[in-house]
């Protein structure tokens, strides 16, 4: 089973990198660009075949290491 984890800054947390990316896009002429927020994608291969168990494991991984829940939120996507 494969998982893709998205880690992004929580709403309300300032994202200076996202802002800089937004500015750069505007400078390149993409005039329609509004707010930009950036984050991380982490791909994980799992030997677990039970989807519920895999999801529980992944949530624990996010809480314990992959996301800093003070400033970040996460989403888990599972594919077989």
């Amino acid at each position, binding site marked *: 089973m494969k998982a893709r984890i998205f880690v992004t800054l929580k709403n309300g*947390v300032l994202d200076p990198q996202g802002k800089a990316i937004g500015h750069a896009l505007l400078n390149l002429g993409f005039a329609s660009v509004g707010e930009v927020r950036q984050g991380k994608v982490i791909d994980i291969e799992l030997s677990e075949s039970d989807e519920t168990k895999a999801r529980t494991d992944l949530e624990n991984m996010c809480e314990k290491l992959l996301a800093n829940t003070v400033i970040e939120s996460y989403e888990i996507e599972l594919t077989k």
Partner: protein
Amino acid sequence: MKSAVVVFPASNCDRDAAIALEQTTGKKPLMVWHGDSELPDHVDLIVLPGGFAYGDYLRCGAMAGRSHIMRDVKAKAEKGIAVLGICNGFQVLTETGLLPGALMRNANLKFVCRFVGLRVEESQSAFTRRYRKGDVVNIPVAHGEGNYFADDETLNRLEGENRIAFRYVEGENPNGSAHNIAGILSEKRNVLGMMPHPERVCDAALGGTDGRGLFQSLLETLS
């Protein structure tokens, strides 16, 4: 006073910290490798030094915060042993939950390396008793991720419980830190995390001695 400095892969201020401790306390600290599972039993102070532990992979302090030795650092901190985290060490402390909040990318996205003015906001702690409240000291910063963030409730608590030990002097905040926070204390006041480097200003030959007070405070309290 017996002290220990934890060394992570890519710590780079561990020896500066050791020299500052030796000069102030007269005793060499123990250097403890991050892969060790335990610190010696009778240690009065644990220092988490500056650097780029584990190359800042994932987030600054994230990997170091989950290393073997940190379990024992956490256990000892909970027992009341003094823990000082400087720069990367402060990031490690927030990552392990020993201090609240998080240290984010500097607001201007630049690495800052220069002296800043800090106001001592709290002299009632093992780390700051040799300073007077309101003293302004010059201590260098050197970081790209020192922008202290916490939710309003946490910030109000830190303010209300007098747990902000150092604040950047108005107009000198180098990173966008909330409430100009440069260093905070834990609830039991035995853990201090700070972005500036007091260990770099303990010898006049290196440009200043404003950091000495912190190590002298510890010596006075823990001996």
